[in-house]
């Protein structure tokens, strides 16, 4: 029973995820565009691979990563383990972002389109370091207190400032990467850490402080990717920038 529940739950959530998209695609393809799909065999195999792959991935996460990650987050989230908790937040932010399938997809597309000018590995590292720093900052805020909206507002201001400094090719990509990092792996682990910390530290509200951590994970990659682009531009063509 302990094994059966996640197996069925994951199967259900994957099919719920995929069925509506498939329905819309097929309707527009055949009824509105009145065209056959190119390479129907390859497409069918590919779609089955997407669903099967996602299903196995989720099943593996439920078996190996989530139980251990969540119990770790719970046991680390006590006020006396400040340094270890900060280090854990940094490491878990970096490593979950690097393994996030949606981020892999967007970074791969960006590398393809920029003809290698934006290597997927660098982009993913910029995002992952952003998530890591953002989460560490978020955990620090839960420890010492402080208004969430002040941090968010500062983040917005820095994002807007960097937007005007960065090359315009990177801006839409950087904005996209903020939404991409908070999907399959990061959110459950980060929520466990945030809620654990907020319930163990007196004066914190799990609802406000626990969920607020996700906002840090989503906002910081925009800053790190824009920052990476500004630095890369400065190194490549310092004269143009100083102009």
């Amino acid at each position, binding site marked *: 029973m302990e094994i059966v529940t996640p197996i069925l739950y994951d199967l259900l959530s994957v099919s719920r995820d995929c069925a509506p*998209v498939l329905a819309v695609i097929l309707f527009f393809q055949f009824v509105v565009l009145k065209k056959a799909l190119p390479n129907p065999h390859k497409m069918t195999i*590919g779609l089955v691979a997407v669903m099967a792959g996602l299903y196995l991935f989720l099943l593996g*996460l439920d078996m190996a*990563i989530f139980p251990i990650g969540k119990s770790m987050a719970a046991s680390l989230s006590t006020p006396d383990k400040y340094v270890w908790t900060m280090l854990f937040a940094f490491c878990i932010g970096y490593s979950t972002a690097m393994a996030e399938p949606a981020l892999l997809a967007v970074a791969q597309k960006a590398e393809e*389109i920029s003809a290698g000018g934006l290597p997927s590995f660098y982009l993913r590292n910029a995002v992952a370091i952003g998530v890591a720093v953002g989460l560490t900052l978020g955990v620090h805020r839960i420890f010492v207190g402080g208004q969430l909206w002040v941090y968010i507002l500062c983040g917005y201001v820095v994002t807007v400032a960097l937007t005007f400094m960065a090359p315009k090719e990177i*801006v839409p990509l950087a904005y*996209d990467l903020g939404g991409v990092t908070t999907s399959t792996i990061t959110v459950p682990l980060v929520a466990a850490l945030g809620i654990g910390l907020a319930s163990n530290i007196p004066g914190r509200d799990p609802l406000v402080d626990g969920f607020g951590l996700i906002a840090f994970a989503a906002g910081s990659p925009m800053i790190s990717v824009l920052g990476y682009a500004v630095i890369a531009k400065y190194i490549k063509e310092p004269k143009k920038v100083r102009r």
Partner: protein
Amino acid sequence: MRNFFYLLYKSFVDVAALIVVLFFFQLFVIGEPFPDMAKMITGLVLVVFGLFVFMRGLEMALFPIGESMAYSFAEKGNIWLLVLFAAAIGYTTTIAEPTLIAIAGKAAIITNNKISAFGLRNAVAIGVAIGIAIGTLRIILGHPIHYYIITGYIIVMAMTVIAPKEIIGLAYDSGGVTTSTVTVPLVTALGVGLASSIAGRNPLVDGFGLIAFASLTPILSVMCYGLLVL
């Protein structure tokens, strides 16, 4: 065959950092062995293999489908049909999103059905639909993205002041739950394909950004919903 192992190895590398972090903290910081090693290893093998299979499916189907549909719509020349398609993708993928269903259920219980699960899910899904539709129009018009997003931020800040307090946390969270692993590659391919099929558009400058719209507009639509029902 060699290629197969290379790609499998690449998926392993993607997950490797996570495995190292979990082992380090479990063995050296917590100082305990894993409770069930066999289950742990089976799970990790599934994660790596699942990621590998998913990435192949992405290259074989999701990316080509998104791009070929963008080309077909551009060829047909009907902008509103394309915008309708984009909105339909946004609405249908969001309304069925498992995380959103769970959150909406909890919100209904906490507020004694003042916020209904059905209403909240529709508010988020309509927000995503409008966001992706506006994002698609932006690609067609070729406007710079940051004017849209910065305006959006300002409206979010202003709405935060007038919206009922209970809805604010939910609204901010709903921006994050809307980007599922299947939708992201499809929508990305759609935007990039569209930007490359319109003359004078650059796929990098104009093609990306749809996800950013889809994460911003639900915050606004949920706050509007809060103003209506609370």
